[in-house]
């Protein structure tokens, strides 16, 4: 959430006045502890593995790989975050990933359908699957845990029926680019990938503009803000981070196609959740369903929409995953639902709903992704990887619980 707790104004401090910068920073960090905490943890994990792998982790090709490898989990995590904020859970997304992958394979491989059409139909299948589950959850009133547990079995079974137990391949190149492709190079030869530099520049402008606008608003409403010099430092740090990331990508093949898709989702969903009425209604519903209903929130419709959204995102993840494997296989997407749920919780969701941000889901997903990638690079076996990921999930949520108890009375 974007709420920020501010200290009581006992001595009516002027906005922006240097009112113990350290205390203010701490206050700010406290308010968004889980997200800041996870950002710090992410940075820590990155640095740890960067040293441990002798710099392999942040080599341009590995960064590209990292993004492509985790794209489908991140897409699922964003949808899952909405589901969890609304106070539900979706266990079926892993099976849905497999089913949609299988359907797209059947359309393209068996029926020679153009890949664009197949992609659109796949997303539609996801929407229908989401609507099917959303109907039972919102309108019939069956708990989401049960409905999606049934969905998990149902879609897995359908996958095997559709594929007759076989893998189907290969896919057209255009489709494969969804997962493996990069934005094509344009313009004169430089040392770097030109479009990527442009994207990076746009991203920096976008971030700075947003920072500036929020700050201006906070000042206008006499909220406590970071002192000017600290704020400038924050902006410079953000710009530097984006620049470093851009240059890394630009010195390899550039921006992966799937990364653009994810950025669009992150910005779009984030905006909807913050600023659109329906997004606010999702938070209200998760925070207190009875109160939301009595405030005129159309609880059934909102819940339904959240599951349709999840269905579409699961379908998108299914297409990306199939494109990455270049095959539709019966075993695709196994345990993806658990990874997505873990990412959402690491990224600040609450079991009881009402709390969380789309950005948080991405951060949580990246924590898991970097851990996976880093541990593989240093040669830790999948057995220990699972153990460590389990402990990280426990530690992240445990830290949050502990922190809340300390802050509350």
């Amino acid at each position, binding site marked *: 959430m974007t709420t920020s707790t*501010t200290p009581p104004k006992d001595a009516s401090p002027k906005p922006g006045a240097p009112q113990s910068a350290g205390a203010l920073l701490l206050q700010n960090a406290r308010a968004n502890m889980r997200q800041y905490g996870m950002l710090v943890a992410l940075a820590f994990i990155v640095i740890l593995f960067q040293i441990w792998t002798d710099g392999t982790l942040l080599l341009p090709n590995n960064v590209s790989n990292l993004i492509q490898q985790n794209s489908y989990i991140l897409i699922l995590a964003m949808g899952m975050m909405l589901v969890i904020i609304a106070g539900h859970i979706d266990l079926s997304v892993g099976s849905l990933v497999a089913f949609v992958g299988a359907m797209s394979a059947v359309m393209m491989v068996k029926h020679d359908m153009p890949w664009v059409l197949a992609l659109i139909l796949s997303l539609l299948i996801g929407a229908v699957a989401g609507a099917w589950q959303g109907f039972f959850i919102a309108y019939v009133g069956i708990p989401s845990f049960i409905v999606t547990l049934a969905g998990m079995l149902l879609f897995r079974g359908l996958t095997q029926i559709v594929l007759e137990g076989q893998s189907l391949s290969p896919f057209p190149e255009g489709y494969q680019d969804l997962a493996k492709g990069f934005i094509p190079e344009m313009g004169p030869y430089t040392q770097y990938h030109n479009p990527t530099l442009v994207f990076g520049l746009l991203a920096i402008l976008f971030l700075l503009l947003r920072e500036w606008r929020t700050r201006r608003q906070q000042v206008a409403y006499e909220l406590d803000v970071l002192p000017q010099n600290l704020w400038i430092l924050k902006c410079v740090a953000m710009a530097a981070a984006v620049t470093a990331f851009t240059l890394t990508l630009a010195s390899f093949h550039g921006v992966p196609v799937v990364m653009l898709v994810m950025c669009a989702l992150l910005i779009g969903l984030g905006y909807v959740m913050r600023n659109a009425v329906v997004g606010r209604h999702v938070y209200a519903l998760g925070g207190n369903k009875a109160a939301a209903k009595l405030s005129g929130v159309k609880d059934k419709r909102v819940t339904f929409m959240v599951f349709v959204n999840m269905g579409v995102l699961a379908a998108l993840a299914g297409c990306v995953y199939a494109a990455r494997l270049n095959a539709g296989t019966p075993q695709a997407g196994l345990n993806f639902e658990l990874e997505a749920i873990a990412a959402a919780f690491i990224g600040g969701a609450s079991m009881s709903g009402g709390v969380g941000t789309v950005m948080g889901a991405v951060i949580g997903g990246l924590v898991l992704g970097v851990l996976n990638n880093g541990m593989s690079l240093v040669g830790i076996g999948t057995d220990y990887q699972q153990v460590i990921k389990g402990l990280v999930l426990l530690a992240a949520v445990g830290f949050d619980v502990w922190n809340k108890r300390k802050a509350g009375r």
Partner: protein
Amino acid sequence: MTRPVLEMRDITKTFPGVKALSEVNLTVGPGEIHAICGENGAGKSTLMKVLSGVHEHGTYEGEISFEGEPVAFGDIRASEQRGIVIIHQELALIPYLSVAENIFLGNEQTSARGFIDWQGTLRKAAALLAQVGLREQPQTPVSALSVGKQQLVEIAKALSKEVKLLILDEPTAALNDEDSATLLDLILTLREQGIASIIISHKLGEIRRIADTVTILRDGRTIETLTVRETPESEPQLSEDRIIRGMVGRDLDRRFPDRTHYEGEDAEKVALEVGGWTVRHPTDHQRLVVDDVSLNVRHGEIVGIAGLMGAGRTELAMSVFGRSYGQYVGGTLTVEGREVTAKTVPAAVDAGIAYVTEDRKQYGLNLIDNINRNISLPSLPGMRRHGVVDEHHERSVAERYRTSMNIKAPTVFEQVGRLSGGNQQKVVLSKWIHADPRVLILDEPTRGIDVGAKFEIYSVIDELASQGKAVLFISSELPELLGMCDRIYTMAEGRLTGEITRADATQEVLMRHMTQNRS
């Protein structure tokens, strides 16, 4: 006085940034009923948490001695072993377990081999139920009992622990008058058995009725300890106004604001008319919870609904508000002369009706979200610009209400769950006032709120009426209905049993109509 049972000396408790208690003193004599009064946030609950060991020894300063010995409780178990039992405002019973199981929860009666001794459990439970005067079987599940009876089960549970000092936190807040009377009588009976009680209450009438002594807290300090009566038998010598003066630190000469009259052109026109409204119980289809109720409210008028618990007041209100309760059977709803069929909450809001719930935590607020977003929730569609919520507008609205309603919070981004009851209620009211309804249904708008905040809420209600809004005011506290309403309807067993004008209304008249049973 003989040696006191409990002495708390110079108790100071600090939370990060807040001094909740500073040098509080409390002395309870043997077999005494000691009331603790104070506005919300005065430190009453914190003091009781210190006493019962919820805030363990070492986290506070000062000394506690019980029965003459200094004590240092590490947790709530330790204090219970000494015979100090606290009964919280929110009951701590498990609904699907039986009365007997609940009484001995955590203190299970076991046989020599370590298994539950059901015979003994039931026998002892039956004895305890007899002691508290509750005629129910020990095997009955707690969920089948009314709130009043559940409260008695809590006391039976306390008695099973050989209680010497019973602490009751707002024990009658959720009870109707009849159940309250039973409970208060029980506390008096326990005193005769030598059990001292500390009772925290906002209801000054109750304090005068049963307490021997009252200690008043304000802003975390002991203000004064007053004698209510010299001997248990004598009449109270302390007036309610005297207690209020101690609580608010000033004379509260008026408990209700003067009513301002609305003089708009539609002043005499009916704003809300309900005709023959009938509702069935959501699960028990045989039962009519609201039976053929017809009433009306004019613009600028405050109309009360009085009734005992279970009379169907809340059910009527919620059913009218987009049929959010039970099963609609029949009845018409007319707002400003137009008949409306509002089958959903959004439709009712569109028709110009707002309902402020009696249970703000359950049905009124999203406690984990901030003031800003709680106020805007019903009005979000109207706050859109270019299809999305205009946050500037939203925030300025919230700021406006924070100032005008005197919501005590540093910013509108304060989490609502951290506010006191009175301030939470102001947020709920702000939320519905901003939705700009023609008709406001207020269900127990001052429940669990201290005296000072009540006056503020009354003033807001008066102002709404003076702006021409029609206000339907549901309350269990007859004095506030008498103090605020132009007319009062009474309900009993789902039916309307009377319509009384301000001039004719007295507590006795109302009570007579409220207890009118079906013949």
